[in-house]
């Protein structure tokens, strides 16, 4: 079934490619990255004690290429990847990250149909108002390996002077067994204007069987050096799934069934995501960006502690530190695996801070990222040094250092440090 979909996708690619190649305004970009990774495993973490629950590789390599081709009304972004590490055989994959048809109905009205990445937020590391865009990872905001994929959508844009109005319809449809299957529908709207130096957007978003979300984002420049930006997105109630242990006092139990529920589904409470940020450029070119992010759908400190105690209890069972009936070992292991779903690359708790310092010095680029949990003060610190050999060839070394107590969010991650060494060819 999946094969059929791939065959149709491949045909679509071939048709688009031939159209593109014969077009006179052909534009293309090709990026090929090979990145080796060494991981220092965090064998003390209760989430994955002794690397035994969800074994992680200590070394790996990813080779990935992204080809963007556009001509006339068509554009396409194709990813081919190969992945290998010390635990698994090499895997090969491809994905059509984008395949879109853009058409200008008039000088002011454009339509887009296809699969496309749309980005609406003004934030650097977080994107609460990016309601139809892939979720960003604050530890890799620029998606260095090009893994984000577009949404299947139809959109219409109206441009007038320094304002615009966009309506988007998203449907995660699939072709299976030669039949078209409609997916979940989403509707989004953005009204943008530029007013007295202020970039201002109003956002609305509705996902089928979910809630209406309303929000705004803005940015403003003060003088020659300082930029300020912010985003807000709010809704009534939440369909986010929470581990049921965070609502109980008994965190020392082995659950017998899948433990996630939408606890606030019927709540009338307002949940919101708020981002406040700024960037400053010094006279010598050093650029500093800072952001504060609050997501009230995240866990409170008390809820995190309860969840962590539960995880630690399961971990102790696995290590034989808690005497239990041997029949409990299996379910307890499942409890640990289920518990991992609480974690997210964007953070599982409510409050985070982000910092990025960047300095370009001739062919060298020096970047330092800090992603800090503002509730338990654990952090990921990521220094990166890059060197541009030529316009087509560059290399980089990137270290990610996870710091914090063993029961803090980043202190409990599978790794203590990871090191990436990459080489990139661009055409």
């Amino acid at each position, binding site marked *: 079934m999946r094969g059929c979909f791939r065959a149709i996708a491949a045909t679509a690619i071939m048709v688009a490619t031939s159209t593109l190649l014969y077009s006179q305004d052909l534009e293309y970009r090709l990026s090929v990255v090979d990145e080796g990774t060494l991981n220092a495993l965090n064998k003390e973490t209760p989430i994955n004690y002794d690397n035994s629950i969800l074994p992680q590789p200590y070394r790996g390599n990813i080779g990935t290429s992204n080809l963007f081709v556009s001509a006339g009304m068509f554009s396409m972004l194709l990813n081919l990847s190969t992945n290998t590490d010390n635990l698994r055989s090499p895997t090969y994959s491809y994905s059509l990250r984008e395949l879109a048809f853009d058409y200008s109905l008039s000088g*002011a009205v454009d339509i887009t149909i296809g699969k496309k990445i749309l980005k609406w937020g003004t934030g650097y590391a977080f994107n609460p108002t990016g309601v139809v865009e892939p979720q960003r990872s604050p530890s890799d905001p620029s998606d260095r390996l090009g893994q984000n994929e577009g949404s299947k959508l139809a959109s219409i844009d109206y*441009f007038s002077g320094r304002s615009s109005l966009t309506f988007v319809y998203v449907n995660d449809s699939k072709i299976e067994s030669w039949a078209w299957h409609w997916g979940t529908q989403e509707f989004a709207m953005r009204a943008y204007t530029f007013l007295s*130096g202020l970039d201002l957007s109003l956002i609305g978003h509705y996902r089928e069987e979910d809630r209406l979300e309303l929000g705004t984002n803005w940015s403003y420049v003060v003088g020659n050096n300082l930029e300020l930006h912010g985003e807000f997105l709010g809704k009534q109630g939440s369909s986010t799934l929470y581990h049921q242990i965070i609502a109980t006092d008994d965190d020392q139990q082995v659950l017998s069934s899948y433990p996630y529920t939408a606890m606030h589904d019927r709540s009338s409470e307002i949940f919101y995501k708020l981002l406040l940020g700024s960037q400053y450029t010094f006279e010598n070119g050093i650029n500093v960006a800072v952001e504060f992010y609050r997501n009230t759908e995240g866990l409170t400190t008390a809820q995190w502690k309860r969840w962590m105690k539960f995880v630690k209890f399961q971990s102790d069972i696995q290590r034989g530190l808690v005497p239990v009936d041997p029949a409990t070992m299996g379910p307890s292991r499942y409890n640990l695996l289920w518990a991992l779903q609480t974690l997210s690359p964007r953070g599982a708790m409510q409050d985070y801070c982000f910092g990025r310092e960047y300095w370009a010095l001739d062919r060298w680029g020096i970047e330092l990222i800090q992603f800090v949990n503002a509730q338990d003060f654990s952090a990921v610190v990521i220094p990166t040094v890059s060197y541009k050999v030529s316009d087509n060839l560059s290399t980089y070394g990137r270290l990610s250092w996870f710091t914090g107590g063993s029961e803090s969010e980043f202190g409990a991650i599978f790794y203590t440090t990871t090191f990436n060494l990459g080489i990139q060819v661009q055409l």
Partner: protein
Amino acid sequence: MKRAHIAVLLVSLAAVLVGQVSAQTPPQKPSADKILQLSDMSRNGWISYGVHTTIENYENGSLKDEGVFDVTIKGMNKTLVKFLNADVKGQYLLMVDDDMWIYMPNTRKPIRITPLQRLMGDASNGDVARTRYAEDYSATFLRDEVLDGTPCDVLDLHAKRDGATYNRIIYWIAKETNRPKRAEIYLTSGKYYKSIDFNTYAEIDGRMLLTKMTITDKLRSGRTTIMKYDSYGPRNLPDKYFNKDYLEKLR
């Protein structure tokens, strides 16, 4: 009667003499702002146009870096810069009045930037994007000076709007052709920041237009930037191309 004739004759004679005197007076020199406006014409051949721009950065005489850009200027206040180097292909800089956005294809979103964030080397965004000095600076006449054998008007330019690239410029403009010859840039502190030599001009579509200029960093010795312009031509993109949200549709 005779006396009346003599009076008419004298008045007529006086009028002729006055007329001759005024005909011999040289035409009034244009104002400094007018000279500045005329000099802009040799950097902007059309109201809306496109130009291919190459920026070369040198350190102690050796080429360190080279950037190639396709620049579209629309009217007095809109500029769209397309980056053409392989490592930044698909990147755009949009400048409307005093406001700037950069669009990077890997992040897929336009980011608001401050004027200090540079394109590359010693060339500021404004060196590429803001070429109509009369829009950004008010001029006063300083002196006449012969520069490299060319008689010039030397003007003192002061920023008249927040988005101007520099605070103060001393500007040499050739008297005969109204073409810029040299500029000295000063920081708000009064420090001599950089000099710009407008090296060569070429005739394109009947217009003499700037084809090469050299920027010399006066704070860090040995650093120079050469900007070369070619493929000038009229280009009138629709207004929507200069809307921040349209950047994601550009390729």
